[in-house]
């Protein structure tokens, strides 16, 4: 046992060192493309950190979003940036030279002070604090699920998740109102991307369904399932998936608001029957949560893929 603890301790130190140096490299490397690639690596290592902190639910979400979707969003933005103005990179590096030494050193000193202050505050906290664990444990029997994280997300603090669905919708609405119309990309001629897509997308959809179902008893749930579905959507968009215009109007909008809609209807009905927002009757809690999660998964997946497109989707006219 001791040898294992020692090895894990060494692993912790190595992981901390790697994450920290990657974060520094993301900030300091000159090339933006390299910075984004390093950021994706940073996200993958963060997923490992979550595993070490016994947070497999977060590790799943981080691996799909932090390492995957955020990187894809940044890459797409960088690509569009170069097509908007190619001489832009030169302008940025020319301007960096004007930055004086003091304007680099002073923030560094201030930040070292912040780290020291926060570190002192952190180390002076009590070693053991139970937080809300006892409350969660006490009410688990009535939650309708066995995974405590899902119980918190969909039951005890269900209104957080409701508002989060609205936040996602608002972000997409803002992107749509700023981004204008964007045509779906033309069919990719890359044979590797095409065959990868044909194999991966069904697997991703299956994984997403599994995560959604298993979320009641084990790590998983609507957010992880939704992000995997979103990743499948991004892959389809990249390979030039053809969707007819009629499906991009009402059917797409219906899926996008499905999550928030079902949530709000459920909350309103329960408010009238039970007298409390999202207070499920104990016997029915299980399937009600599954229903909410299924709707949320579809909406999250569609919203993330639509965010990647960065504008109101418009079907391209095929030959």
């Amino acid at each position, binding site marked *: 046992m001791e040898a294992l603890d020692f090895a894990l*301790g060494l692993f*912790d130190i190595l992981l*901390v060192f790697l*994450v*920290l140096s990657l*974060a520094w490299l*993301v*900030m300091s490397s000159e090339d*933006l493309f390299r*910075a984004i690639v390093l950021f994706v690596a*940073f996200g993958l290592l963060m997923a490992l*950190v979550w595993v*070490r*902190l*016994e*947070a497999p639910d*977060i590790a799943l*979400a981080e691996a799909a*979003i*932090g390492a995957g*979707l*955020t990187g894809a*969003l*940044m890459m797409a*933005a960088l690509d569009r*940036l170069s097509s908007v103005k190619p001489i*832009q990179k030169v*302008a*940025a590096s020319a*301007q960096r030279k004007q*930055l004086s030494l003091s304007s680099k050193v002073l923030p560094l000193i201030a*930040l070292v002070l*912040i*780290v020291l202050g*926060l*570190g002192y505050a*952190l180390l002076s906290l*009590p070693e*053991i*604090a139970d*937080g*809300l664990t006892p409350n*969660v444990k006490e009410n688990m029997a009535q939650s309708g699920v066995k995974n*405590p*994280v899902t*119980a*918190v*997300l969909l039951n005890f*603090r269900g209104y957080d998740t409701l508002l989060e669905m609205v*936040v*996602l919708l608002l972000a997409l609405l803002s*992107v749509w109102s700023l981004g204008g119309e964007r045509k779906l990309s033309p069919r990719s001629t890359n044979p590797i991307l095409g065959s990868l897509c044909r194999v991966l997308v069904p697997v991703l959809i299956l994984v997403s369904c599994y995560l959604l179902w298993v979320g009641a008893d084990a790590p998983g*749930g609507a*957010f992880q399932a939704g*992000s995997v579905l979103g990743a499948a959507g991004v892959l389809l968009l990249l390979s030039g998936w053809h969707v007819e215009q009629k499906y991009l109007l009402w059917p797409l909008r219906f899926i996008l608001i499905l999550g928030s809609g079902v949530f709000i209807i459920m909350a309103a009905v329960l408010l009238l029957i039970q007298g409390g927002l999202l207070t499920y009757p104990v016997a029915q809690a299980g399937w009600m949560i599954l229903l909410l999660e299924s709707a949320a998964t579809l909406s999250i997946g569609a*919203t*993330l893929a639509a*965010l*990647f497109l*960065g504008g109101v989707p418009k079907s391209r006219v095929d030959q």
Partner: protein
Amino acid sequence: MNSPMIYALLGITLFSVGLYGLIVREHLLRKILALNIMGSGIFLMLVALGKRSAGELPDPVPHAMVITGIVVAVSATALALTLMLKLVEASGSAVLHDAPKDRS
């Protein structure tokens, strides 16, 4: 010092590295990357502190909050990137300028 504390300290260091990048680097894409790193630091600190519970399992409430936070962060990032592209379209530069007269 136990391992949750090491990760909590890593969290505040990541936050500061991100904050440093946010202040010093000019390119807006870099600033968005910096905000994401700051967010990761905050999430890390939250979860690491939730692991101090005496029981076998860590506190699930910070876990749920962080999962929510990660999804909000990615949607905010998408919005920020769209705003950046809009700014580049309008001003021709992906760098924020101090005074209006600097605008080319």
